């Protein structure tokens, strides 16, 4: 029989990148994403004998990730330090309009309260159903719905696309 450590290492090897990507979207900067992922993976390691099944391990890690991102935000400690973002060089072929759009979108997303952000990331990045999101975050289906709709409404405002008649879509024309 293979050792737990080997099984766990396989799991991290297979799912590490996917989890890091989610962590990155939940966190406000890359360093925080690393910390979030490490905390979550450490908890998964400690719970490994209970989980075993890789699917359960991944769901467990994601649950810890989402909840840790929310509770960190509450502690405020992590808001003291905001390293300046140096945008990665994205290559010349990328259409500038799409880049500006994406940067504006990510910026707006990071300004949402963490629960709204977590709901939006799980729904639109991981393509999870409402029920799955509710189970992951320990919320009711109704709260997931309201977080999602409030989050989207707030995004719309932050992107300067308020519900009024003059819907300016400057990002798209760029």
């Amino acid at each position, binding site marked *: 029989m293979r050792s737990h*450590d080997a099984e*766990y*290492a*396989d799991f*991290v*090897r*297979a799912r*590490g*990148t*996917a*989890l*890091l*990507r989610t962590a*990155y*979207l939940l966190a406000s900067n*890359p*360093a925080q*994403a*690393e*910390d979030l*992922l*490490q*905390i979550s*993976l*450490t908890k998964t*390691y*400690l719970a*490994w004998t209970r989980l075993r099944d*890789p*699917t359960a391990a*991944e769901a467990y890690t994601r649950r810890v990730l989402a909840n840790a991102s929310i509770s960190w935000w509450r502690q405020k400690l992590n808001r003291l330090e905001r390293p300046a973002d140096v945008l*990665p*060089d*994205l*290559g*010349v*072929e*990328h259409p500038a309009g*799409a880049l500006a*759009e*994406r940067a504006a*979108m*990510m910026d707006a*997303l990071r300004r949402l309260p963490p629960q709204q952000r977590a709901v*939006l*990331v799980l729904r*639109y*990045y*991981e*393509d999870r*159903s409402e029920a799955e999101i509710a189970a992951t975050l320990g919320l009711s289906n109704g709260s997931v719905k309201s977080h999602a709709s409030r989050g*989207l409404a707030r*995004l*719309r405002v932050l*992107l300067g*696309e308020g519900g009024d008649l003059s819907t300016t879509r400057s990002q798209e024309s760029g």
Partner: protein
Amino acid sequence: MSDLEGRLTSALHDETTTISARPSLADEMVRRGAGVRRRRRVAGGAACLAMLAVSVPVWRSIDTSASRIEPAGPSTGTSPNAVTPTRSSPALPAFAAATVDVVHQRRPTPHVVGLRTGRHGSYDRVVIDLTGAVPGYHVAYVKSLVGSSGKAVALPGTAFMLVRLTPADAHTRSGRPLIQGPTTQTYELATLRASALVEDFEGSVSFGLGLSGRVQFRVFELIGPSRLVIDLRH
């Protein structure tokens, strides 16, 4: 799905394609986890928290090479490096005409987001762009290109190749197609005449390729971002 939701989905996926965990992460986490367990036995929960607070970066790097980000459309002209296997590229498999069948179980289901082509020195290259892990794949010559609809897809060419990816989807849960632009394309390359999406159904995505003849080919995976590459001999 509203316009904003679609744009948010694309932004989230695009934003993360350059991110990948360091290969050593698995070993680091085993060491770290074992350390926490040991300390916990000795000193209880407090040491565990202290351990968690120490951070070793798991970030590998954001690859900034221009080769990573390519125009999404097919580049039928001379594109000598449509893909540069910069990372994890041991010897490429040899060219052969035999069916390639690789099984990967993946959850969540990987997404197929595009197909690009390019002409190289002695082969034409087809790159299937993916998000998530590389799914299992079956690449074989077939008599006709038939997807799950049962209806054959007609393409130019005298030999036909079917590339089936499982588990994979080319649409989101809400039904939005992930491949931008037309799903059937024709090319003026030495071997490759045309490509078409022939199936995107029940976790299986298939592309049909129309070729000028039954040439030798090779298939390999690339990561960061995930891609499946099929080279077709001239």
